């Protein structure tokens, strides 16, 4: 008997009797005998809790990467997560609850969702946000599908400087939906080099900052697009101090919300945020919490505009998404509330300041230079003759930067990417420089 199963032998007997069957096997008589009970599923005995703890802990400790000082980005970032976030997430009324279909016993979930939607709108400069999607990449794909539904266009303008992982996911979704990707190059400063808008374009994607770390200028883009959507894929941390895509007329702003209070998690779970204009509300994928009143006139929250969703609209739904990334969105909500306007700005500026400080020092080392002259935020490409050797040298000093090959899809063979957050201390920055300079 396992500790999660409370049925004793006596319980089982009594329950079988109430049902009127002789044994448990009789409860499976509807499963064809030819395929029933013919195998051992995992070929393993039950294990005790101490063993399971040792085994999983052993796996976790086996990954050497976690002991390195991370200067890693490429879409996910090592920001400080205040412990208060984890404490709230461990409140099991929140973590062990289902989707809040029954609002009277789900005001906790529905209220924080409403707060989250408010905060995402503030960050992005948009009018309405959903309560989360899986991750930034699928959020981008959903945005494109929405643009396609809204405009009928089948061509997507995709910058070469989009995060390669987001691009790959988008390509899969687009192939499924019968859409095509058209690449937009970047200029020598690393910024988007948009030329013409092809016929049948449903959307232009802009990433802010882009996968090269460079900040894009969104001015005037929307005007050039006609009815095609301007979709921004933004990192939420810089949005504390840079003008949000909403100010430039973006139709949709999506992004990876991991930097907002969520750990790297070896890439999952993540948090896709999605914000748009009220005009597009009924085309928006995902759940939404809305404010209303109860029979006594008391303010409360419900899941609303459910007619967009698949359990009602079925094949006509705006998306098939159902389970989302709620607990990660709660982490983002608590994180943003904990940081506040000033704190988020501080996180952004510390990352900016330290990244620029490091970049300036690297650029002074003979043989190393910044790849792009365009403005960057907290991540930048370093160009050098032997990027693999440089990264290996850093590794020997206990420092991790991404393998240079992650830049290959971006057309860069002679560089590596460096990301800096507010967590990197002066000592760590010095250690980076010492290692690079071979001291």
């Amino acid at each position: 008997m396992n500790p999660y199963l409370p049925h004793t032998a006596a319980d089982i007997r009594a329950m079988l009797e109430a049902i009127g069957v002789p044994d448990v096997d009789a409860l499976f008589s509807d499963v064809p005998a030819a395929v029933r009970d013919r195998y051992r599923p995992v070929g393993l005995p039950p294990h005790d809790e101490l063993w399971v703890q040792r085994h999983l802990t052993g796996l976790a400790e086996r990954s050497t990467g976690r002991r390195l000082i991370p200067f890693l980005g490429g879409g996910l970032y090592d920001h400080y997560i205040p412990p208060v976030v984890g404490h709230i997430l461990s409140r099991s009324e929140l973590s062990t609850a289902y989707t809040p279909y029954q609002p009277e016993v789900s005001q906790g979930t529905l209220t924080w969702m409403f707060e989250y939607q408010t905060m995402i709108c503030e960050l992005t400069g948009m009018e309405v946000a959903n309560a989360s999607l899986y991750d930034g990449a699928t959020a981008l794909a959903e945005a494109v599908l929405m643009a396609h539904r809204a405009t009928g266009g089948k061509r997507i303008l995709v910058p070469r400087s989009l995060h390669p992982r987001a691009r790959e996911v988008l390509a899969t979704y687009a192939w499924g939906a019968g859409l095509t990707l058209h690449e937009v190059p970047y200029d020598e400063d690393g910024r988007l080099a948009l030329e013409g808008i092809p016929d049948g374009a449903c959307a232009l994607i802009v990433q802010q900052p882009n996968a090269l770390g460079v900040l894009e200028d969104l001015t005037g883009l929307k005007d050039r697009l006609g009815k095609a959507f301007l979709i921004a894929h933004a990192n939420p941390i810089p949005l504390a101090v840079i003008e949000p895509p909403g100010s430039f007329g973006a139709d949709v702003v999506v992004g990876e919300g991991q930097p907002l209070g969520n750990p790297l998690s070896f890439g999952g779970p993540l948090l896709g945020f999605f914000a748009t204009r009220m005009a597009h509300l009924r085309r928006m994928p995902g759940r939404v919490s809305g404010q209303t009143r109860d029979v006594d006139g008391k303010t409360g929250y419900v899941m609303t505009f459910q007619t967009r969703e698949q359990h009602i609209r079925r094949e006509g739904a705006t998306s098939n998404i159902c389970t989302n990334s709620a607990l990660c969105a709660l982490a983002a909500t608590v994180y943003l509330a904990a940081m506040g306007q000033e704190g988020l700005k501080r996180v952004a500026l510390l990352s900016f300041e330290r990244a620029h400080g490091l970049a300036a020092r690297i650029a002074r080392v003979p043989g190393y230079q910044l790849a792009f002259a365009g403005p960057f935020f907290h991540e930048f490409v370093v160009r050098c003759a032997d990027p693999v050797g440089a990264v290996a040298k850093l590794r020997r000093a206990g420092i991790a930067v991404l393998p240079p090959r992650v830049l290959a899809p971006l057309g860069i063979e002679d560089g590596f990417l460096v990301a800096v957050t507010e967590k990197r201390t002066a000592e760590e920055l010095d250690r980076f420089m010492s290692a690079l300079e071979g001291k």
Partner: protein
Amino acid sequence: MSTIYDRGAPGRRAVALPPLAQPEEQVLSGIPAGLRRQGAPRLPAVSQPELVRHYTALSRMNYGVDTGFYPLGSCTMKHNPKLHEDLARHPGLADLHPLLPDEECQGALALLWEMGECLKGIAGMPGITLQPAAGAHGELTGMLLIKKWLEDHGELGARTKILLPDSAHGTNPASAAMVGFSVVSLPSDRRGLVDLAALRGALGPDVAGIMLTVPNTLGLFEEDILTITSLVHDAGGLCYFDGANLNAYVGRARPGDMGADVFHINLHKTFSTPHGGGGPGAGPVTVSEALLPYLPVPEVVREGGEFKLAWDRPKSIGRVHPYFGNVLVIAKALAYILTLGDDGLREVSAGAVLAANYLKAKLAGPYKLPYDRLAKHEFVLSGEGLDGVRTLDIAKRLMDYGFHPPTVYFPLIVREALMIEPTETEPRETLDAFAAAMLAIAREAREQPELLHDAPHTTPVRRLDEARAVREPRLKLDLGDR
């Protein structure tokens, strides 16, 4: 309910952050003027005591598995072991960056590989991807795999239809539609199972495949499953199995043996990871031999004692997730499987089916049972027999008894449906208490129906005006001049 914006005052903060090295204005001036933000995002300004009280208060307005019985049909709300939460928080997983070289991530890759082996064994199928982040994401992945198979076999233009029993999960048609399939609904027969005649009639050279929910949303096992899959295969189609209801038969039968070509598994249901108020989940997909070449990249492979990511899959549909799926969720589910082993997995389905049939036996009579058959992990009642009250009233009244209501008005093919899934982790005493509450409510419906109409009476808010929420949409706070 007040929001966090109702607390705090300008200048308060909940976290002390390091100072900048330079004056703030100087740092800001490094951002090109046209990019620098003009109006700051309006976020709360609260001290840590206020922050903690607010979210603690919100938590106390919520109902979770840890507070009580949660018999939501089709959702498998079972106990979430506490060990797993601690394991998933280990920095060797939680703080590991997914773009590090394989050799720096051996433990995490080993974990993914082990999980893949376990799930392939449970499914009885030779291939797997752990990338899908949820059940519906798994469905989408499955549809993409089928589409790719059609393309590879030159049948993409020809086979455009997906057959869908009317007892399937609600996400299925939406998933099929996302990759351009048209959906053909198949009626259930009087048994509540797939109508074989209707199936035969629908099959043809334009059919790409079928999406089967097993057991279906009536909680019934498709007894003709082997016939169904044979018919579809014979007609040149593929069979998708929706695994959201795997809890009904885990350890006892394998979709691979029943003819599944694609099968998704909701780890957050069957393998007991917390639902988190709506997510994150995980929806790995297993596939038959036929679909192996199309699986997403990268694949985690083992070479001797080492693990690596394999990318050389030219026919792959590509990525459906930017990294490897919801790894922390996978870690919890793996811990569950390792704790149970083969015997424990069988105990899970035994306990789930036992509990469902036990509750069904107690409730049938006072409540109408539209399909009176052996149930699997859940069963569907109808509130129709109770005059003057609706299923919604029953659901709301259950809250006053301290229970979360079952799923209501689903599946659509049962009027006034109440879909009850107790799971195996509930003690018999809880099932008895729930049955007693349901029977008391049936009595109240006759004797004091207004008690039900006005329910719930004891919750932080009472019945909410959902129409108003649509009529006057308020989807974020009006922050005014803050």
